[in-house]
């Protein structure tokens, strides 16, 4: 019963969020909040997607940029070849991201976590090289895109993208929450704590990791897809920027990885800090702030923001080995 009331509260929250986003697109005339908000929403979705594997299962994906970039370029290729609408671009990106997650997961998830991390670095470089050599999508020179006309009820494309990204956030959070509360979430948590013990307690660790990797990959690529239309431009070095990897990881850890709300909080905090700094201090100090925040949080608040908020976690972090 408790669980049900939680669920009701959650979905009510989601509904309020989406209605708020939708009415914001109808009421607010100034476009800047949508540009900046899009970026923050994108990072929320990315961080939540990352957490499904990196947080719940403890397998660090360094290749967020690979999945993100694959999303961008799936959208670009599809749009250029067929002029497919945004929804199709996103769906296709999700499928490609899922296949990619399956491939890299099958290859390396049997091994210790760090091998998976390194394999994802390699993956990012290989795919970026591939895109650089793929002339159809502009190769290294990049490609400029013309947005199709915007659909009702939106009066500008950016507002629509903002709404779309909000839906992706809801999907990512919904999936993350579902996993967390399901058998799968418990299995992932068990294998993160102790993989052999989990296996011997009946947890199909490889299968769970693979599924988590596929879901996480699909979401990351889906989040990347609208970026092509947001920028109306794509180039490999921006699409495969290491920033996506580091930000997703940093946001997730700063927020806390044990609960889906962690990466959401982390992304809001770090994302808006970065947006804020970009238009205030606006210099290399930005990067310094990211570095210092990262170090301070992993050292001082091992369970992230949610650890600071929820005493149960704080108590345990300081506990004995």
């Amino acid at each position, binding site marked *: 019963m408790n669980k049900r009331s939680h669920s009701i509260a959650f979905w009510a929250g989601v509904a309020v969020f989406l209605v708020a986003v939708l009415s914001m697109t109808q009421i607010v*005339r*100034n*476009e*800047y909040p*949508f*540009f*900046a908000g*899009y*970026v923050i929403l994108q990072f929320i979705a990315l961080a939540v997607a990352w957490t499904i594997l990196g947080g719940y299962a403890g397998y660090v994906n360094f290749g967020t940029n690979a999945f993100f970039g694959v999303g961008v370029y799936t959208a670009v290729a599809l749009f250029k070849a067929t002029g497919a609408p945004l929804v199709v671009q996103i769906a296709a990106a999700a499928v490609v991201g899922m296949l990619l997650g399956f491939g890299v997961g099958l290859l390396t998830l049997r091994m210790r976590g760090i091998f998976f991390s390194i394999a994802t670095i390699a993956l990012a470089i290989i795919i970026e*090289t591939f895109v*650089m*050599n793929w002339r159809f999508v502009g*190769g*290294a*020179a*990049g490609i*400029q895109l*013309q*947005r199709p006309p915007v659909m009702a009820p939106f009066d500008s494309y*950016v507002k629509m993208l903002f709404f779309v990204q909000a839906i992706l956030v809801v999907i990512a959070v919904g999936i993350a929450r579902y996993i967390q509360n399901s058998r799968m979430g418990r299995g992932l948590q068990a294998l993160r704590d102790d993989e052999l013990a989990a296996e011997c307690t009946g947890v199909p660790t490889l299968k769970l990791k693979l599924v988590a990797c596929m879901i996480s990959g699909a979401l990351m690529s889906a989040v990347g897809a609208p*970026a092509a239309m*947001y*920028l*109306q*431009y794509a*180039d490999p*070095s*921006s699409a495969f*920027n290491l*920033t996506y990897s580091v930000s997703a990881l940093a946001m997730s850890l700063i927020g806390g990885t044990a609960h889906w709300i962690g990466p959401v909080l982390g992304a809001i905090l770090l994302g808006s800090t970065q*947006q804020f700094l*970009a*238009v205030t201090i*606006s*210099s*290399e100090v*930005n*990067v310094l702030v990211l570095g210092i925040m990262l170090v301070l949080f992993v050292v001082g608040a091992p369970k992230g923001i949610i650890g600071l908020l929820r005493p149960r976690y704080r108590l345990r972090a300081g506990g004995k080995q």
Partner: protein
Amino acid sequence: MKRRTFLGGAMAVAVVGHGSSALAQQPPIKIGMSMPQTGGLAGGGKASLLGIEIWRDDINAKGGLLGRKVELVVYDDKSSASETPAIYAKLVDVDKVDLLFAPYATVPTAPIMPFVKQRGLLLMGNFSFQVNSKVGHDMWFNNAPWGPADSWAASFLDLAQKAGGKNMALLTADQEFAQNLALTARDVAKKRNIPVVFDQVYPPNTVEFASIIRALKAAKPDIVYVASYPPDSAGILRAVNEIGIGDDVKIFGGGMVGLQFAAVMSNLGSLLNGVVNYNTWLPEKSMYFDGTKEFFDKYTKRAIEAKVDPLGYYLAPFGYAMGEMVAAAVNSTKSLDQKGIAKYLRENEHKTIVGPIAFAADGERKETATLQAQFRGVKDKDIEQFRSSGKQVILFPDKLKTGDLISPFEAARK
């Protein structure tokens, strides 16, 4: 877009309503831009920004624009395309700037082109390359001297053919700018029936160029066209020096980014000799116009404090010129109306510290003023030498020429 006309109206009222010249009494004219201050383009971005700041200080010292002070609103775009849309949205919708300058380079500029076109805003381009060719925005004006897309390769190949070059090797970085250059180079070569005997694209972060240069040498080209980025330019020249490039090569260089920057030039020193490379401004006598010398006097002083390129030839004077053009347009149209400014910019020739500038329909220069210059008599470890004329002799364009090509490459290196 009702708000836009409202904004325009407000500005018109502000401009027409008060003729007073007291700077402090009126709100300043805000010019907004992003500029790469971190990441790969930061070196150029910071130098460019300093040029623009010097212009701002000069114009304010003279009483500002339309009697109003000029203020810059600048944000860091981290050299990335994904940052600029939000920044320009903020500049326009929140900061309500009066005029927009583009960030240095093509990548950060590309995503804002559709935005300014849709909003009908004037954008002063800052060294991007062919960014408007597909967008076709009629209120875009690039400060760079590039001119028509193919003129770059054409001028280099003109020099090469005059020196007796018959076939070409093409070595290009797998990055946006270099690939655009390579595309036009292949086209021009094809039109002129110059066979391309070697065509390699090398990846970013290549550590060692000895292998590539050996392969290039084995193809025995007599024209070597290189389009490279700063870290690679140094690596390529070192490898050429060590491995050798063969006596057949008549001319070497063309599109090497980085050989315009003081740090790179002083690092390479004598390795530069003989290289024919593009440039935008050089301390040769043909390059001094009204105010040029004064500009560099100020720049040299302020560059030390700002920790930017001590020479600042490549970008800084063009940042200044961008300001000069806008100032001329605003002063003669007596308004901040963007359509009016654009019309003025398109229809007139503008005097600037980098020479007269006239725009074609696409917002690029009517004719190219991209220099091709040959390094001569450069010594090691000396930045100051580059301030004197004769170190980089201008071979092209003819109007600005200060010497003739020494060929073959090996002879020019001595």
